[in-house]
Structures are given as C-alpha cells and as structure tokens.
C-alpha cells in the first residue's frame, strides 16, 4: 500500500496529487498547475507542445486565412479606386455652401 502513498519519482516523499492524464501519484515537486489542473511534467509537455502534424496543419490553415485577409484588403482598395474614379467632381472639392 505504501507504493500508492509515495511519489513515483521520489519514493521517500508523500503523494499530494494524482495527474488526471496519466493517473500517476506525485509529490509536491513533481506536479504543476496548468489550466486549473495539476499535471505531471511529461503530461504538461504533451499538453503545451502540440504534435507535429497538428502544428503543421494549424500553420497551413493560418497561412490560408492570412492570404484570404490580403485578398480582402486588395478587394477593398480596388472597390475604393473604382468609387473614387466614378464619384462626381463635387465630392472632391470642399465647398460647404
């Protein structure tokens, strides 16, 4: 029974928490708080660093959204150019009365 009350990494230390991901019993030094959960070091690494394919997919998606943003700005300025070209001359001269 003592095995369950002692830390996985430090057999001499008492357990203070159990990692919700890997369910390992850990002492105060081996757990850390992340997103209101007490995680062990290896699980924390997994949570913080997304897996490589995920990260790559996200980067591609972000680049696509950024390209769409550029396209939107270009269309906006193109429309502005057309409006300016066809606006009556009275709009380009400040004559309040």
């Amino acid at each position, binding site marked *: 029974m003592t095995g369950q009350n002692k830390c996985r990494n430090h057999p001499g230390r008492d357990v203070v928490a159990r990692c919700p991901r890997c369910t390992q019993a850990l002492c105060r030094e081996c757990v850390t708080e992340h997103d209101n959960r007490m995680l062990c070091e290896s699980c924390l690494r997994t949570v913080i660093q997304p897996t490589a394919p995920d990260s790559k997919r*996200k*980067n591609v998606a*972000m*680049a696509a*959204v*950024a*390209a*769409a*943003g*550029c396209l*939107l*700005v*270009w269309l*906006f*300025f*193109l429309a*502005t*150019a*057309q409006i*300016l*070209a*066809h*606006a*009556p*001359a*009275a*709009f*380009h*001269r*400040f*004559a*309040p*009365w």
Partner: protein
Amino acid sequence: MVNTKTFDQQHGRATTALIDESGQLLRSAPAGVLCLYFAAAVPFTAGLVFFWAIMIRSNHSIWFAAAAALVLSLLFVWMKIGQNLYCCRLRQHLTGRRDTVDILRAACIQTAIQPTGILTLPICLVIALPYGWACAFYQHATAMNSRASDSKQLLELRQHAMQWPLQNHAVTWLLSPALTIVGVCAVMTMPPLMRLINPAMPLALQVATSMIFIVVAVLSSPVGMLMGANFSVTLLLLLSQTGCDSPIASALLQAGAPSSTFAVIVCCLAYLCMDPIVKACYVLRGHHIRSGVTAEDLHARLRRIRAGS
C-alpha cells in the same frame, strides 16, 4: 455586503490617467520604438495619399487600379505587422521582460485578423452601438503577444475588449483616428450630397446644414478635429507660400477650395500623431487587465528594483 472593489478595479484607471501614463511610456521608451512605428505607418499613409490623388482622375485602366490596390494592400499589411512589433517593444519596455517575438507567426496572425476590421469597423460605426467594443478588439489584437494558442488568444481579445467599457469608450472618443476620418468624410461629402438631392436648396439652409455637420464632427472627435484644423491651416499657409501654379497646389486645391486629397493628407497626419498614443494606451490597458490575474505589474516593478540594485 460591502463592495470592497475600488473604482480602478471596477472601471479601470481614469482615462486621463491612462493617456498620461501612455505619454510617459512613449517618452521613456527608446527612440527606436517610435521609429519602428513610423517605419511601418508612413509608407502606408504616403501610399494612400498617392493612391487617392491618382484614383480621383478617372482616366486609368482597371489593371492599373488593381496593381495600385495590390501595392496599397501590401503596405497595409506591412503597417499592421509593424504596429504589432511596436506594441511588443512597448510591452517589453513596460514589463522589463525580454520576450522573443516570432515575427512570421505575428505576421500571419495580424494578416488574418486586421483585414476584417476594414469591413467590420465601418459597419459597427453605422450601427453606432458596438463600435467601441469592436475598436477595442482590433486595438488589443494589434497590441497582443502572438505566443499563446489561437483559440485562447481570440478568447482573451474578446475578454479584454469587453473589460472596463467606460475607459475604453472614453479613449476611443478622445483619441480614435477613425472617428476623425469619419468626421472629415462627413464634412466633405454631405453638403454636395444634399445639393445633389435637392439642387434648389436655399443658401441659408446649406450653411445651416454644413455647420451642423461640422459641429457633429467636432463633437464626435474633439482632439482629432482640432489636430486636423491645425494641419489644415498649416498646409494652406504652406500652399499660399508655394503659389497656386505649382503641381502640388493643383493637386491639393480645386478652384481655390481644398480638394479631397487635401483632406486625406490632413487625416493621415492626424492618424500618424494620434495612433502611436492610442496603441500605447491599449498596450497599457492590456497590461492592467492581465495584471489583475497574473500580477504582471508587481513582477515588472520587482524586475525594475532588481535591475536598479
């Protein structure tokens, strides 16, 4: 139950104190930080003036307009990335923490978020009510750190935009260059529009409606319009010195009256003066909001004490 929260905790720091603090932050920051801002914003504003001056002449092809719009959109993206880096440098100066900035990631995020603002903000301004929150969202997006995950960042931006609405609306009203631009546009376009609708309008009514538009524009952005008036007078004086025959004067004046290109130059100059302070305000606002959760302000103060000792 007694409410123990102070006014600052409930509504944020007083607007005048925040603007004062942002002025101090800008003054104490290295000159390179402000140079970074102008290196980002001046090419776009200069490009916009040239774009406007060329496009109001209708004798250009669609391909030329497309190419000019492409150059201007690239300058816009460049400005937004530069403004984000400027805010990062200001935040580093404020907190004393040397965070690494992933420029490529910051560029992608800014290019993804900021272009939506050129459509969303005018729509919000027409509806009037959500403009302050929408404006705060995009200002906080410019001032954000690009390290956190995307979903968390959007959530944080939304939270920051909703926080302390009184302070946010006061800063927007006092310093937002967008309101100045809208005011100038209203003063420029409304009188000819009314004359187009009713050509037989009496002169007294024309004067009265123009005065109403000018008063509304001044009330909607007092600082910006005051700055705009100063720049207008300075430009008119400079033009009177150069003479009405010079090519610059012919582009800025039409039959003796200021042209729309003149108004664009005034708006751009007002923008370049006001926007660095607005950005500094939102860097500080974000810092104050985060400090309530992470005690970032205390860490910054400790870091400063440790560096001084």
